[in-house]
């Protein structure tokens, strides 16, 4: 996976997971001096890093307090406030697993 991974970053895809978009130099200006990743670019198709944006879902869902700070609907006697947040944990497992599977390299 290794060198291929590096090559991907050098291209600066549109996702943000592996630093593209944060650390690739477009935002903060480090790309010029240290962006040597591109020189190691090996041929080969890489899965798109755009999948990383999906990770915003499990980050934002548990932060929507105005949405879930309520009693109804209840589940097994639990107020919505409590079971919604537990549900977010399951959501996080599902989303991160999906992103992992979509972005992993060939091994």
């Amino acid at each position, binding site marked *: *996976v*290794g*060198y291929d*991974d*590096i090559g*991907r*970053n*050098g291209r600066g895809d549109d996702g*943000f*997971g*592996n*630093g593209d978009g*944060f*650390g*690739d*130099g477009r*935002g*903060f*200006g*480090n*790309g010029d*001096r*240290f*962006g*040597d*990743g591109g020189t190691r670019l090996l041929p080969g198709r890489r899965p798109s890093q755009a999948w*990383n944006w999906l*990770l*915003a879902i*499990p*980050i934002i*869902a*548990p*932060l929507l*307090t*105005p949405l879930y*700070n*309520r*009693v109804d609907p*209840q589940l*097994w*006697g*639990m*107020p919505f*406030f*409590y079971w919604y*947040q*537990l549900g*977010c*944990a*399951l959501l*996080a*497992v599902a*989303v*991160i*697993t999906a*992103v*992992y599977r979509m972005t*992993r390299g060939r*091994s």
Partner: protein
Amino acid sequence: MGGLASSGAEFWVFTILLAGTILLGFAAAQWRRPHSIHSLEEWGVGGRAFGNWVTWFLLGGSTFTAYTFVAVPALVYGVGAMGFFAIPFSIITPPLVFLVSTRIWSVSHRHGFVTGAEFARARFGSRGLAALLAITGIVATMPYIAVQLLSLQAVFKTMGISGEWPLAVALGLVAFSTFRSGLRAPALLSIAKDVLLIWVIIAALLVVAMSGGWGAAFHSAALRFAHSPGPGTGLLLGSSDQLSYLTLVVGSALSILVYPHALTGILAAKDLATVRRNAAALPVYCLALGLMGMLGVFAISMGILPVGANLAKGQIGDLNTVTPQLFHVTFPGWCSGIAFAAIGVAALVPAAVMSISAANLFTRSIYREYLHPRATPAQEARVSRYTSLAVKLGAVVCIFLLSPQFSVDLQLIGGVIVLQMIPAVCIGLLTPWFHRWALTAGLLVGLVVGMVQLYQIPQLSPGGRSIARAHFGGSSWPLTHLGLHTSASVYVGMLALAVNLVVVVVGTAVLRGLRVPAGTDATKQADYEADVDDPMINRLDNLLDGESLQGAGAHVR
């Protein structure tokens, strides 16, 4: 249930399980024994060789600690919804680990770092900054170890065992096994811990189901909160509590990215895929934590009182004992013994990991930088071993000599100050733009602001009518201090971090404008994407003094 017979069973099941688990820690010395444990990468990060399962248990064991399992139900018991913050916090942490911590894994693998401070030293070319970060990390970690021991002490208190010696014996044994086996010891212990924990959760769910289910529990808890209203309490968040809840959630999640013990767990993973898969599986622990949190509600409905509580005299007692008391009262004796052993192991695992992390910080950023720059890997490992003993001893002294309340205060402060490492250790992974002096200034300003704000927060007595303690009474800082007409408050850590970031950004702009020389960045863009099959060539030592570091320990494949 009480009764002599059942409390006897409780005691013996607890003692045998705890002793058996600690023996397992000694067996860790033989487990996947490396050719030589005499290097810091073998001792301090398990040779960077932990696979999916071990990493999962270790990360779970060191971030979902006994203090979490004891304090979260106690908080929910005391204040209701506000105490549930730990659940959303632990849900948003894994996606952040997936995105950010993979980068520190890569760069550390490439350069042989075992701590975040070393990374900042290489990234920003300042050993002063690294030393300051190391000290911040150690100061934040020590009280965290102390509160783990307090959780274990709460278990002893519930069983009616007084005195500090049982605590000292348990910690002494774990300290010894960690001294010998390094990170392998807590890694094995954390597997045992989770087996016990699963048992506890199943047992707790059964007991809740047999006692009328969650509906009945929430109903009687709602009655209690309606009966004795206080500021920030209730089964739902008050309108002015939401900001405080959110900032606490985000602040706690960010702190996991820089807490030394969490980094140690991540750096011990054998490849990037292991870190990512673990990020996907970690929210499973949130379910466990969420159920534990709701046990606080169940404790209200069962009329559980903490040890030392006296309602007539208005004493609230030791809230840490709410969870152990709940198990003690509702479980059969042998079963509460298992639960207590789970809490005990859950206290000793993070105590071991944290002391290893603190020791690594000292060894790499203070000992090697200032005291003995030419230290060999064997000398580093030896220094770390003895430092880890010293750190544990420090935590015990913290508890024995100072009041337990002091440890809890320090832990509160620790959470705030560890966040001040975010610009250098976390944002630094994404950009080298920051100037080393601006980062140092930001860190110092953030620390001072955080301390001052914590000092300004009084603790209210139960019911909220009077002030019980004038200072360090919590971490929610009322915005009225800023002259705003609102009842909302904000988590101190996030405010201090905001001030810290402003100083860093403005300072960097000014210093760069004045062309003050910034440090040399010893890392390359490609280092942040490296995986296990990349050669570990760019060792910091090579770059700095052209000296080759032989036998650096990690498994180069």
